[in-house]
């Protein structure tokens, strides 16, 4: 059975659609679980129960919500910029799926092997910004526009510390080498290759969060800002802007933005696990299981932060990025470069 499946995937022209279908299925289940987890975690923090009715422990609640959203009428407000309005959800949706394909789930289980995996992930993240702005502008709605403006400014600004902190890890990986299991020769590690980053941590038994703690913290905060999560959720601030850039979207289109947001959360946490927490490294349990467990732990911390803090005002958010995060990440990078050069 596995042989025919892998033969099927390797040889036939159906490989692409099947792989795509598998990824979509996995991601959909993931989003369902994450939304359920969000509601449960927020409920427990707020001394409530969360969903309990639909399915055991309310597990099927998100499915019911998705079915409801799919069955809703697609309302297009008048005077919207039709191409932008219709294209935005799709453009928000597509890059995140592509980025998942690059993640190393275990030593051999990578969907797309690529020498520059890290760069690709960040590139796809950049496309999402365009989608947000298209949504805000195309909606012909002042609230949406305000939300889009804020979101775009926030995303572009926080990409910088995000990438700089990842670069620090790349420098460390490039300096280390590691031995491949077969062969036994020292391989010069390519820091941009995601599987190399994990293997370097695995071989030296040292998670990079211990080597680069500042980079880890900067990365985590920037990740919160990139995914528009509280305390950086000004673009979606319900109490100010109704719903920010996706105010005018209803039904399936809204669920696409929703899907994109939660998958984005998954990607940044998977990347955090790859960069700092050893990827699939771990005793006893199989690699992919550890990978997912660690990613979900990071997501849990993101949810915990969301329900604890109020939100930052927009100019405070930008000040924090440009005056604190970026200088700090540059200093970290310089220090890392210095240490790597000396040792």
């Amino acid at each position: 059975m596995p042989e025919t499946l892998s033969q099927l995937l390797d040889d036939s022209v159906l490989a692409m659609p099947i792989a795509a279908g598998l990824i979509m299925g996995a991601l959909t289940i993931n989003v369902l679980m994450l939304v359920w987890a969000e509601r449960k975690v927020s409920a427990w923090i707020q001394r409530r129960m969360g969903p309990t009715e639909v399915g055991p422990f309310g597990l099927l609640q998100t499915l019911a919500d998705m079915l409801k959203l799919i069955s809703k009428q697609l309302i297009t407000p008048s005077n919207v910029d039709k191409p932008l309005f219709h294209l935005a959800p799709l453009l928000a949706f597509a890059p995140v799926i592509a980025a998942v394909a690059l993640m190393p789930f275990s030593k051999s289980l990578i969907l797309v092997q690529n020498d520059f995996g890290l760069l690709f992930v960040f590139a796809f993240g950049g496309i999402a910004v365009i989608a947000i702005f298209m949504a805000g502008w195309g909606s012909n709605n002042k609230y949406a526009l305000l939300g889009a403006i804020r979101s775009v400014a926030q995303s572009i600004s926080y990409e910088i510390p995000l990438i700089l902190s990842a670069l620090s890890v790349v420098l460390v990986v490039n300096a280390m080498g590691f031995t491949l299991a077969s062969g036994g020769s020292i391989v010069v590690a390519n820091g941009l290759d995601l599987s190399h980053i994990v293997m370097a941590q695995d071989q030296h038994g040292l998670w990079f969060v211990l080597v680069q703690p500042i980079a880890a913290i900067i990365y985590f905060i920037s990740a919160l800002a990139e995914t528009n999560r509280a305390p950086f959720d000004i673009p979606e601030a319900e109490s100010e802007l109704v719903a920010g850039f996706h105010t005018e979207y209803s039904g399936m289109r809204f669920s696409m933005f929703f899907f994109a947001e939660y998958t984005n959360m998954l990607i940044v946490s998977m990347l955090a696990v790859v960069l700092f927490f050893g990827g699939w490294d771990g005793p006893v349990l199989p690699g992919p299981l550890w990978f997912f467990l660690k990613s979900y732990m990071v997501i849990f911390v993101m949810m915990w932060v969301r329900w604890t803090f109020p939100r930052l005002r927009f100019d405070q958010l930008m000040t924090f990025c440009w005056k604190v995060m970026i200088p700090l990440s540059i200093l970290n990078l310089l220090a890392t470069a210095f240490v790597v050069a000396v040792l």
Partner: protein
Amino acid sequence: MTNAVPPEATPGGGDGEVYSLNMGPQHPSMHGVLRLLLDLKGEEVVKAKPVVGYSHRAHEKMAENRNTLQFLPNTSRIDYLSGMIYNLGYCQAIEKILGIEVSERAVYIRVIANELNRISSHLLWFGTFLLDLGGITPFLYSFDDREEILDILDQVTGSRLTYCYGRFGGVTMDVDEDFLARTTAFLARIRERLGMYDDLVAKNVILRERCINVGVISTEMAKSYGVTGPSLRASGVVYDVRRAEPYGGYEKFDFDVPVLHEGDTMARFHIRISEIEESCKIIEQAIKGIPEGAILPKKMPKRFKIPEGEYYFAVESARGHFGMYIVGDGTDVPAKLKLRTPSFSNLSAMPEALAGTMLADTIAIVGSIDVVMPEIDR
């Protein structure tokens, strides 16, 4: 430090276009039905104009068409969050005009009920203020505390929110040992909770960033607009009607009137938290000293005729100075009843306080003033 944002700092730029944004009357954040017409340049508010009147129910006209006793249930609907204070305040006003004696026990019960109402109003304000700022969790905790107060008052009055507990001369139902025990237990609980709110909320750096030096109301501005209540006390003026014109037994109790001088949102926040503690002190003293006795006078007139003349009576509600100006003409239907509500004057200071602030601060500032729209619209 002023609120004004230098033109270069705003995303829209100094000579960008001014566009208008309408917030409300239906809006996830505005407390009650308030419509704010904002003229914005980028993120900076150039001009803010509140539009009120969406919940105008003609209370003053109703007062002129009903006799004094019939108007009693209306009083707690004027400001439903301080319903007990308003209801008992109206009773005290008529008692003062007609010279009706209130028994000691009723006085103490009224003080306990008033202060419990004040705590519940401040707790609600605390939860919704943080909700507007994005911190959703404290809302559920403060409402949990508030539920306990509502249950306690429900036990004795029969209502959770809009009370008609007072009668001219006393209160309707007597309180029993269970009520006093529950209230004492509640005091212990809220004091512990205030410690938690202080650690997690008041010391939270994001909250402090959003509230310190935001929405500064100077002393001169507050006095000119007639702002009263915690907003006035945060701007440096020690004015509490319970101290300035003692009524209803407050002269017997020992409590402080907290005052701060910064006049910003953080100061108003701290004042309200301090007021919860002060109310706890008052309730404690009242429970300790409550005497036995009747709660209503034995003989009560059937009609309460207001002698000719003009009268003014003020109480301290959770929002400030609530005054009733009553004109009598010898019958039991007042010729005129004017309700001078604190939120009316507090909100009228908003256009000046909001000019030059950022959009996100608008929510914080209006929230920190603690307006209740039905009180403004009556």
